[in-house]
């Protein structure tokens, strides 16, 4: 099949899309456009191994499959606008590319705190270049670190900073417990205790209203007016979808780009979205369109979207991934299958004990919708058993 497919975004989703287009039989041209100067690399190690100095960029770069060897990579630029009706995109350098197929893979960017105060000393960890700069800061002797945001990334960074020997590590969050949004109260309490035992301090139920310092940050101003001294601040307060370039095409961009059950965008058979920028219905649950910011999403969605883009949807079942994520913090691992967040109202211990390795089940209307394992191999084995159960369940919708 000839023609030209443009892939907007050169992270894991863009790479897998290019590879899966070839696997689906596309023999025409493929151009992948990315704003970072780097080829696609693996992001989860940024908040862990890269900060800890245990991984270099070379070890993070993905090795593209041989089938994608002739893909054209246009890096260090970005798509600034799409004209879907004309099947064309505009690039930052002013050039216009026409396409027969378009893959939206532009992902997310970190949300930043809009507070008064200096910018220097404040970091995010989404990109490799950020992580390498942050690493140099975290290894300064006697450094005091404040992490804003007690989600997974914030807690991973805090754990890594403690491991690097930072003098003080404090996590600030308006919510009453770390990771409580995705995991619920039971596990969040357990995780709070485990972090505190290993040297992380928490200021919970408190927002950030500003930063102190002249040239660079010296303190974080909390909502009660008190000030936490800080040499380094890490902001991990969520992310925003990179969809501005799709404005003006009549699309629903209210949280990522809305797709149909086959990841198609705007009712157009020649435009699909992959990775965490795609807001798709999952018939495995309730069919409500959601974005999923898990590592497994780019590969899962690229496979489905490429197949539909190249061959159409005849005989193809709707995209219905089983979400999975993990998080390594200190000496423990969290491993999740399914959608725990949909079952926060009915949380039960399925295996083990919260004082050690434990497997927690999340239920909706009495039915298991997700599991989270905390701990070592025994918890992982238990989670794997329940993963099989979750996979076997029929769809909740229709």
């Amino acid at each position, binding site marked *: 099949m000839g023609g030209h497919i443009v892939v907007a975004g050169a992270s894991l989703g863009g790479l*897998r899309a290019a590879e899966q287009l070839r696997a689906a039989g596309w023999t025409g041209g493929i151009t992948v456009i990315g704003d970072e100067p780097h080829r696609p690399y*693996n992001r989860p190690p940024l908040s862990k191994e890269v900060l800890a100095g245990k991984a270099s960029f070379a070890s993070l770069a993905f090795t593209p499959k041989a089938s994608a060897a002739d893909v054209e990579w246009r890096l260090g630029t970005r798509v600034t606008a799409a004209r879907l009706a004309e099947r064309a995109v505009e690039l930052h350098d002013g050039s216009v590319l026409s396409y027969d197929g378009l893959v939206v893979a532009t992902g997310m960017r970190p949300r930043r705190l809009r507070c008064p105060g200096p910018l220097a000393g404040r970091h995010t960890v989404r990109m490799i270049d950020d992580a390498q700069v942050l690493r140099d800061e975290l290894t300064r002797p006697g450094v005091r670190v404040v992490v804003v945001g007690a989600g997974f990334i914030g807690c991973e960074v805090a754990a890594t900073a403690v491991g690097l020997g930072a003098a003080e590590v404090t996590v600030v969050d308006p919510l009453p417990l770390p990771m409580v949004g995705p995991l619920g109260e039971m596990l969040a309490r357990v995780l709070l205790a485990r972090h505190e035992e290993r040297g992380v301090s928490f200021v919970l139920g408190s927002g950030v209203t500003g930063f102190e310092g002249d040239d660079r940050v010296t303190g974080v101003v909390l909502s009660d007016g008190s000030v936490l001294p800080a040499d380094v601040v890490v902001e991990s307060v969520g992310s925003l979808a990179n969809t501005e370039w799709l404005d003006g095409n009549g699309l629903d961009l209210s949280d990522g780009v809305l797709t149909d059950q086959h990841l198609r965008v705007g009712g157009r058979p020649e435009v699909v979205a992959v990775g965490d920028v795609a807001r798709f219905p999952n018939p495995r649950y309730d069919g409500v369109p959601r974005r999923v910011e898990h590592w497994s999403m780019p*590969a899962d969605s690229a496979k489905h979207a490429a197949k539909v883009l190249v061959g159409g949807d005849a005989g193809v079942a709707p995209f219905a991934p089983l979400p999975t994520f993990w998080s390594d913090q200190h000496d423990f691992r969290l491993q999740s299958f399914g959608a725990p967040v949909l079952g926060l109202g009915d949380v039960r211990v399925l295996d083990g004990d919260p004082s050690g390795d434990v497997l927690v089940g999340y239920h909706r209307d009495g039915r298991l919708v997700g599991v989270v394992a905390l701990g070592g191999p025994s918890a*992982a084995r238990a989670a794997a058993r329940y*993963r099989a159960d979750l996979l076997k369940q029929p769809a909740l919708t229709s």
Partner: protein
Amino acid sequence: MKVVVDMNKCQDHGQCVFAAPDVFRMDDDGRLAYVPDPDGALRDEVEEAADVCPLQAIRIED
């Protein structure tokens, strides 16, 4: 087909076991064990296993 796992990278996530259970398994200690020279008919599932490895530690050599 030859399968090579960089055991220095592997962190025992077990995602490869789900993708290619005929080639990868976790032993009783939760450590990865695998068949280094699987049947060529298993290629698709081994490729899937390589794709889903969070550490990208699996390499396929022909």
